């Protein structure tokens, strides 16, 4: 989880990612951010994130991203 928060903070240092749960709905992460994050996550966790996973529900908070990663590792 901490690694994911760090990745997010790299993109937007000004946001409190521990708390925020509307990263997509409030347009904090744009499409460029999402792709950067996907490349980071694929590298770090050696997972394949397919395009079907790129939904607001999966990317709205650090926690939901973490859960998606967990699911893909399993």
């Amino acid at each position, binding site marked *: 989880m901490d690694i994911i928060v760090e990745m997010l903070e790299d993109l937007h240092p000004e946001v409190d990612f521990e708390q925020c749960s509307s990263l997509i709905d409030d347009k904090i992460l744009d499409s460029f951010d999402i*792709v950067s994050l996907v490349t980071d996550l694929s590298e770090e966790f050696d997972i394949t994130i397919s*395009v079907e996973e790129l939904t607001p529900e999966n990317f709205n908070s650090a926690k939901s991203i973490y859960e998606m990663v967990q699911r893909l590792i399993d």
Partner: protein
Amino acid sequence: MLFTTSNFIFFIIILTVLYYLIPKKLQWVLLLIGSLIFYGIAGTSYLIYISLTVVSTYLVTIKIDKIQEIYDANIKENKEKLSREERKAIKAEANGKKRFWLVLALLFNFGILAVLKYSDFVVSNIYKDFGGFGFVLPLGISFYTFQTMGYLIDVYWGKYRAEKNVFKLGLFTSFFPQLIQGPISRFDDLKSTLFAEKDFNWDNFEFGVQRILWGYFKKLVIADRLLIAVNTIIRDPGTYQGAYVLLGMFFYAIQLYADFTGGIDIAIGVGQVLGIKLKENFNRPYFSKSIVEYWRRWHITLGTWFRDYMFFPISVSKPMINLSKYLRKNVNNELGKRVPIYIATLLVWLTTGIWHGAAWNFVVWGLGNGIVILISQELSPLYDKFHNKFDVKDKFYFKVFQIVRTFWLMSFLRTFDCYRDVGTTFKMYYSIFTVRNLNEIFSGGLMKLGLAIEDYILLTAGVVLLLLVSLYQRSGGIRIRLSKKPIFLNYILFFVLFLSIIIFGTYGIGFDQSQFIYSQF
């Protein structure tokens, strides 16, 4: 039948009356019949092409759905017996079959679009004397093909199940208000109101009619009037250079906005009269502070289509992720992160350009947009530093500067739409810096563009009204606020709007002539 024909007005009135008189479960059937009549009058051969798209998409989505169903049942039944590897293999096999059908349908439908729209362009670039195949391009084909392929991909991704009724899919594809120039709808979004049974609702009706009137006002009073001056300037690049080019850019910015948003207002308004909610396509784009923001607020449904069905699939595809990993290992982390984004962005913008038209102008326009977006992305750390150092980010004057800068940047890029070829556009850019004729415009030049002083007064009043409405919209829906005012005030206001369309509208011969710009895409 175009929105700006008297026939369309009769068509809407008759359709609306019937719509609320017939049994509610037949309402969507009436819309389908109405849509086919609407499209058939525009061109009977169009009906063949759109039917090919509907039927092929229907058959393939049903097939994909079936493959998924069999896979789900197999896994459910044998969950205990199958090993993890076996489950993976079954899944890969099902995905492979689904992908085969997806690719087939994409090739078939984009193939129709490509042959009809682009074959002349491609062949004439190879053989200079080629006269053209002479295909008739069905109106709105780029819009309905994109909308239907979005549906197909959604079913493939398992976002929702395939529609079992081919006629309902037919209505989704051909629904007449959005058929010619959008907005591009998503099936899961539109179906809840498109196929629902609806009672007559006075608020919806009133708001819808107001929106339609506002659309006609923008189109007939502003856009079609400005079109005269814009055409005078761009069709004679030998005469109208220097400051005229800037004036043309400014006029075209307003004309295109009034034309396209006017058409969308009519579409959304007609939808609302029929109790159907269409997506908003604009969010006051000329108040954007950057080009990225502009593209989030202009032609929103096309932008999100490209994002969801092209940008994301390309940028997170296996080859891209592998390339990213390779670059991270062998060059550096940052480049590995950015290359997929950059490749996907340029491909998306190249396609966006080509989507708008089969000509080099649009290719250059599309790539121009992509390159400016990437440059501003690269420079954004520098911008941030500047904003922080001088503490200007929240200052009013700086926001105004950013808005004006974005407006003119977009106007410069948009000039590629206007002139007959890329070379002429560059010549006109050059003339802005070399031909000094600003005085000429204000000492009689304006009057030579086909518009009289009354036209300029009307245009100024119209643009001020557009601006006021835009500013008013910033703090919430304008019509809801208006509806809270006394009712007679509302009626007077809309009666004045109606009268002004009748009196001040720019009508071609027989009120029929001026097409919407986006209906040609």
